[in-house]
């Protein structure tokens, strides 16, 4: 009897944590894991989104994307350009802003709020807002340029600088994330390290280089990974600003996926793009993690 009660208590102890986890796990499995595997399955089929049948086509969707799709490589190129322009600039600007906001500054709370405010705006609103501001004919920016005698520019119409403009808008909108994370990282660096550096005769720049940057290694790793993943997922702001144009200049992979899946209803190929993005992000993340680990061991 005593043994029975003890094993019941033991069982309850083991079961209770899982019961608490059950709601989240159910949600996770239904909304995350199941779609993930379902997407993988669809990527090997041909499906028009209406037909109940999904005939298996093996690797045909991947083959089409790599060798026949006129826009797949265009969109890979656009995505890489977006990452190259977006990630480093957001890291540098985010860090610079965080360092400034970490100083004793007049109106610090106000400045922090001002930098953080754009981040709470929905990406769709950002797209529409800048669509108006940058409209070549009736946009606010050209209006002010003309006031200073500068001829109106073909913002978002001429493909030459469209990606750069899209990245600038993205930086304005989302720089707060990096800034806040770096700010938290900066506040986690012990003050004694700076004091010791000062005693050793380090200049502010040397302190930044030898104390701040190494102290932010983990933060930077987190930010780089998040930014790269986020850049692969970029959609809303670009879609609303340019729809992937002009002349495919901003047709990043997510926009290509959306067009193929929801404009042309080739769900198998759209799912294949999602699988490719997943693999690229996974491989890049593993490479970055291993690079950071190696550099950590070296130090």
């Amino acid at each position, binding site marked *: 009897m005593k043994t029975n009660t003890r094993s019941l208590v033991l069982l309850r102890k083991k079961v209770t944590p899982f019961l608490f986890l059950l709601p989240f*796990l159910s949600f996770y499995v*239904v909304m995350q894991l199941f779609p993930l595997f379902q997407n993988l399955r669809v990527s090997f089929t041909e499906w028009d989104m*209406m*037909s109940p049948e999904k005939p298996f086509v093996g690797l045909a969707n991947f083959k089409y994307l790599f060798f026949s799709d006129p826009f797949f490589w265009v969109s890979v190129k656009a995505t890489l350009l977006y990452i190259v322009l977006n990630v480093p600039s957001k890291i540098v600007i985010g860090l610079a802003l965080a360092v400034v906001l970490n100083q004793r500054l007049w109106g610090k709370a106000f400045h922090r709020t001002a930098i953080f405010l754009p981040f709470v705006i929905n990406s769709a609103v950002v797209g529409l807002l800048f669509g108006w501001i940058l409209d*070549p*004919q009736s946009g606010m920016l050209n209006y002010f340029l003309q006031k200073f005698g500068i001829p109106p520019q073909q913002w978002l*119409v001429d493909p030459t600088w469209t990606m750069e403009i899209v990245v600038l808008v993205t930086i304005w909108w989302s720089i707060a994330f990096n800034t806040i994370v770096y700010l938290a990282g900066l506040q986690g660096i012990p003050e004694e390290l700076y004091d010791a550096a000062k005693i050793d005769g380090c200049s502010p720049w040397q302190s930044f280089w030898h104390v701040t940057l190494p102290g932010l290694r983990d933060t930077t790793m987190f930010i780089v990974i998040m930014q790269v993943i986020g850049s692969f997922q970029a959609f809303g702001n670009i879609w609303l600003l340019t729809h992937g144009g*002009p*002349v495919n200049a901003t047709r990043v992979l997510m926009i290509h996926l959306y067009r193929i899946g929801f404009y*042309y209803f080739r769900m198998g190929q759209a799912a294949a793009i999602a699988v490719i993005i997943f693999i690229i992000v996974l491989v890049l993340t593993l490479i970055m993690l291993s690079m950071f680990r190696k550099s950590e061991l070296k130090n």
Partner: protein
Amino acid sequence: MRGIKRAGILMLAVVLMFAFSTSVLFAKGTQEKQKAAAGKKEAAPAGKVVVNYWSRKTGSDGDVFSEFIKGFNTANPNIEVKMQVLPWGEYYGKVRASILTGNAPEVFDVSVYSPPMFLKYVESFTKEDFTKAGINMADYAASAWEAVKFNGKYYGFPDGIVPLGFYYNPVLFKAAGLNPSTPPKNLKEFVEQGKKLTKDTNGDGKINQWSIIMTDNNMMRTWFWESILDQNGKSLLNADKTKANFNNKAGLDAINVFLDMSRKYGIAPKVPGNSGNAFITKLAAMDFDGVWTRKMFKDKITFATAPMPQLGSVKPAIWSSMDIFLFPKGYRTKNPAKWEATMSFAKWVMSKKFQLEYTKAAGQLASRLDALNDPELRADPHVNGFLEEVSSGMVVYAPALKTTQEIYGVISESLAAVFAGKLSAEKALAQSEKQVNQILARK
């Protein structure tokens, strides 16, 4: 420790089983829903049959249409038509998803090139069906019926015709010493009149009134290019729609005629823009635009319309779409009351009264001949140019294929590159031809 591990794995297995069974049940439920599409719609208000109508009429045409529907609902107390307007970008995806999940509306509208996407899932009709329903097919433009005919069957009701065309500002014509009642009919006249309309009106040495501004809308540009291709005696695809048919002199001339407006004749600025806005603000005296734009122009500017000038070398032609009503399968056999109510609504849309009033009030043109030939409409300068395009037989409907939207997508990207100065016209045509043939070759 081992016990805990085993218990943990067991619990995880239970959770996974629960989650998967939920998903499976959910999926199964969806399939069952699909099978029982017709019977499971929401409960109607007491004594009323609800007819859900989904539309892509996102402009003022949608507002006008929904006002008309109020009249229908009042006149038919046993029926309540609920119109839902969905944005273009997501429209076809939502319709498809609704058919897949068994929640399709009783009727939805599509453009002229979209029926092939839905043929397996919508009702078809025979001539006898129309006769039984009291619709005399001879009352409508023959081309409208052809547009809904696939494999010898009719897959919908041709609700209205939506051509592109030509707008001009008679006030600016007069000011330039031109006769507003003789707008240009061909390229020569277009350039001659265009030169007189292009001027510096405030004497600052810069042109501030152009004859025309080329549209920066990729799709519209492609449709106008296709119109000139047709005018040059070729069509977008070959007769059996298996190959591209535009990488030739006719296609090249069709691009060059628009580029020449700026580089050769100097009657349009080099950079394309929002041609409709330019027309409203009198930055342009003429505009190539769709019939739907007339509603927007109506309250803002004095304008007239004329058939699209023949800028090509062979014959007059202009691209056109249509609004087509499609009816998802299921209701006809499983819910006769709903089907009857849906047909009442469709017949009302095809009636002379509706077609005439709607053509007067909104954008698209009637498909009924007596409405198309109505003397009052024929005398209306805001629409008579478009009516003339239809009655003279110069409208060319977009090819109806499952992949038409995609074909227009690749061509429009290439043409955009040409107009942005990033690609030569020859390369753009060759590139588009290759891509279109790849699309057409796909199973």
